[in-house]
């Protein structure tokens, strides 16, 4: 019985264990189910996140990355440095500096009156003007206050900047064209505007070479807008230009022209110096003039490049062209006699007078004394057709082809349209219009032995890394007269400067000069007649006469008092040539003791 009781207890205990095991099993089963549910939920969650991530990172990548870039990448425009312009000795004639431009953020400015009164005295603009600008642009996020300030002004403003509230004003560094020689060569160089675009002169003609390449680069910036370093550092700078101009000669010409203007109280004056053998322009100056650093304050008259764009009647300087044609065509010989004792000649109903009575002159003396009557007689021997042909061959009535904007081709009527007086008038330099440059180019023909050269100002264009892009070299247009005719004319023109000639004041101490004076009445379009008191006085020539280094023309418009070319323009020519020879180290040729031979001692 006891055994039976024990057996019963054991059975009960086994049953309980089995029951416990069942319970455990069912609990585990529940846990597993819960785990599966949780895992599924979490996996689903991760799957959703993964899906979203894939969506963001792959499918929406382009769109989102663009939006992000907009927030932290800024497009920065790199303004290229404009090319430098050098003279023939590599002196900078036009270069670049960097200046600060001041801008305001009107929407951030609370007290416009205070800001205006603080800035105004520094940038030299009335505070009322600045105030009204800020009020007008109220609500806008940007307005220029002062562009390209002086260095001193921008330093003063930078020191003041801390007294303004954050974001009221700011500075932008901008390049500015700078002409270190100021007024010197202003008509050649021209000028560039505030956006660095060439507006006049060589700056305009060669703008495409000079301007460089604008580059826009992405720059990282932080939350405060502060720029981080960018990969691309520099824009492509413009090409540099070397001129044929010599700054020293240019200054001499400008200085003498200024003094002539003051002395003669003239309306305007022009001087051009050229190497007659090559056509290189060594100097070119106009008066009145201007400073290309401040082009806006100059008026049209001051900016006018009369040397190339304005035409004038040459007067007696034309007689050398007539003489060249007559000698070349053998229409006259040096010893031919011309009776000019009457002092007048009537052709086609028009009477032409000599300024002084001369008597009988040979051909050489006709030019030396600048006899109008004698010139008309020479012209009549040559004939209209031949004279017209030579006028054209010397380059009149056509542009010289100089690399400069706005060149005038002059006025020359076709020989078919000449009137009965035309030949006589053209023989003394009337009924024809030309630029001073055309006349100088024509005289260079006589100076260099008979060849018409194309004038040029730009010698070479070189890339920023020093490679030659374009090189101008002397270009012959055509042979106009023979070498012997040119030599004959040089000898005749030498006499003009000697005693008894019309241009004794052009005589240079120590060197022979050849040239011709011109005094032309200005044609009055209102009255239809030549003015009796308005003249253009000129002298054109070259020196040393037998081996010319330079050819020079001086034209003085409407001088007051003395009007003859020999009295007004010839002294300017002399002063320029003397200074030029000193500058170029051209020895005096008349006195033998000017040049010393040096030999080594034994």
């Amino acid at each position, binding site marked *: 019985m006891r055994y039976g009781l024990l057996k019963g207890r054991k059975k009960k205990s086994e049953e309980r264990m089995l029951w416990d095991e069942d319970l455990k099993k069912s609990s585990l089963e529940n846990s597993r189910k819960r785990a599966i549910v949780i895992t599924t939920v979490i996996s689903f969650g991760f799957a959703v996140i993964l899906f979203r991530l894939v969506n963001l990172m792959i499918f929406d990548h382009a769109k989102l990355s663009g939006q992000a870039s907009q927030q932290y990448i800024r497009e920065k425009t790199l303004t290229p440095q404009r090319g430098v312009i050098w003279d023939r000795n590599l002196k*900078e004639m036009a270069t670049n500096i960097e200046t600060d431009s001041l801008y305001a953020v009107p929407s951030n400015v609370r007290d416009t009156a205070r800001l205006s009164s603080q800035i105004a005295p520094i940038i030299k603009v009335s505070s009322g003007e600045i105030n009204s600008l800020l009020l007008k642009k109220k609500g806008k996020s940007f307005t220029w206050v002062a562009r390209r300030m002086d260095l001193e002004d921008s330093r003063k403003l930078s020191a003041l900047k801390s007294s303004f509230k954050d974001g009221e004003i700011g500075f932008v560094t901008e390049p500015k064209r700078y002409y270190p020689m100021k007024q010197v060569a202003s008509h050649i160089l021209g000028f560039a505007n505030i956006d660095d675009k060439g507006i006049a002169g060589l700056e305009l003609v060669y703008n495409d070479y000079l301007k460089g390449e604008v580059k826009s680069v992405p720059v990282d910036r932080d939350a405060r807008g502060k720029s981080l370093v960018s990969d691309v550092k520099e824009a492509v700078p413009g090409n540099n230009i070397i001129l044929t101009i010599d700054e020293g000669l240019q200054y001499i010409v400008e200085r003498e022209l200024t003094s002539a203007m003051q002395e003669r109280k003239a309306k305007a004056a022009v001087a051009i110096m050229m190497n007659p053998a090559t056509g290189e322009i060594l100097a070119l100056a106009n008066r009145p003039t201007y400073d290309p650093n401040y082009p806006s304050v100059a008026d049209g008259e001051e900016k006018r490049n009369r040397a190339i764009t304005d035409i004038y009647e040459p007067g007696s300087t034309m007689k050398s062209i007539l003489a060249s044609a007559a000698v070349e065509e053998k229409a006259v010989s040096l010893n031919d006699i011309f009776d000019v004792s009457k002092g007048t000649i009537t052709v086609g109903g028009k009477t032409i007078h000599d300024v002084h009575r001369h008597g009988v002159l040979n051909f050489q003396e006709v030019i030396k004394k600048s006899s109008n009557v004698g010139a008309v007689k020479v012209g009549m021997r040559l004939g209209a057709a031949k004279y017209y042909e030579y006028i054209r061959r010397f380059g009149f009535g056509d542009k010289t082809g100089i690399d400069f904007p706005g060149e005038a081709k002059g006025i020359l009527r076709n020989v078919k349209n000449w009137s009965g007086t035309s030949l006589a008038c053209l023989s003394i330099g009337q009924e024809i219009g030309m630029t001073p440059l055309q006349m100088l180019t024509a005289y260079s023909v006589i100076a260099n032995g008979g060849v018409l050269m194309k004038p040029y100002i730009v010698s070479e264009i070189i890339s920023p890394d020093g490679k030659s892009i374009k090189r101008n070299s002397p270009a012959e247009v055509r042979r106009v007269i023979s070498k012997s005719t040119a030599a004959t004319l040089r000898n005749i023109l030498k006499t003009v400067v000697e005693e008894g000639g019309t241009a004794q004041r052009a005589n240079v101490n120590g060197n022979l000069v050849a040239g011709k004076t011109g005094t032309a009445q200005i044609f009055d379009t209102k009255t239809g007649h030549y003015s009796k008191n308005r003249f253009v006085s000129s002298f054109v020539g070259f020196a040393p006469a037998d081996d010319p280094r330079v050819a020079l023309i001086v034209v003085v418009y409407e001088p007051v008092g003395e009007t003859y070319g020999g009295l007004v323009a010839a002294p300017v020519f002399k002063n320029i040539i003397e200074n030029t020879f000193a500058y170029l180290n051209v020895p005096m040729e008349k006195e033998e003791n000017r040049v010393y031979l040096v030999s*080594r*001692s034994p």
Partner: protein
Amino acid sequence: MTKRRTKNGKKKMLVKFGFLLYFVLCLFAIIWLKAAVVNIKYELGELDRMKAELVRERKMAVAQRANFYSTEKIEKVALDRLGMTLPMRENVYYVKRTMAAGPYKASLK
């Protein structure tokens, strides 16, 4: 046997912790590197600005030098400040050198 299981569990825990630590360290290293790069970018940006300022000063100096070298300026300084005069052409003697450098004597021949 229970002891061995406990030992294995601890080992696994250590490995897991190690991996976690390594992961965190790597994360910090990447963040530190990124921060260092940004810092260098700031420094380079600052140097860039300094360079731009120096370039600007150089341009000003070149412009000033060009202005000082102009014939007009030189003549003005020579005449007004140094009391010099322009030489007369008669007073200028040009010397033609016909031989190599050495002791020379001048002759009027």
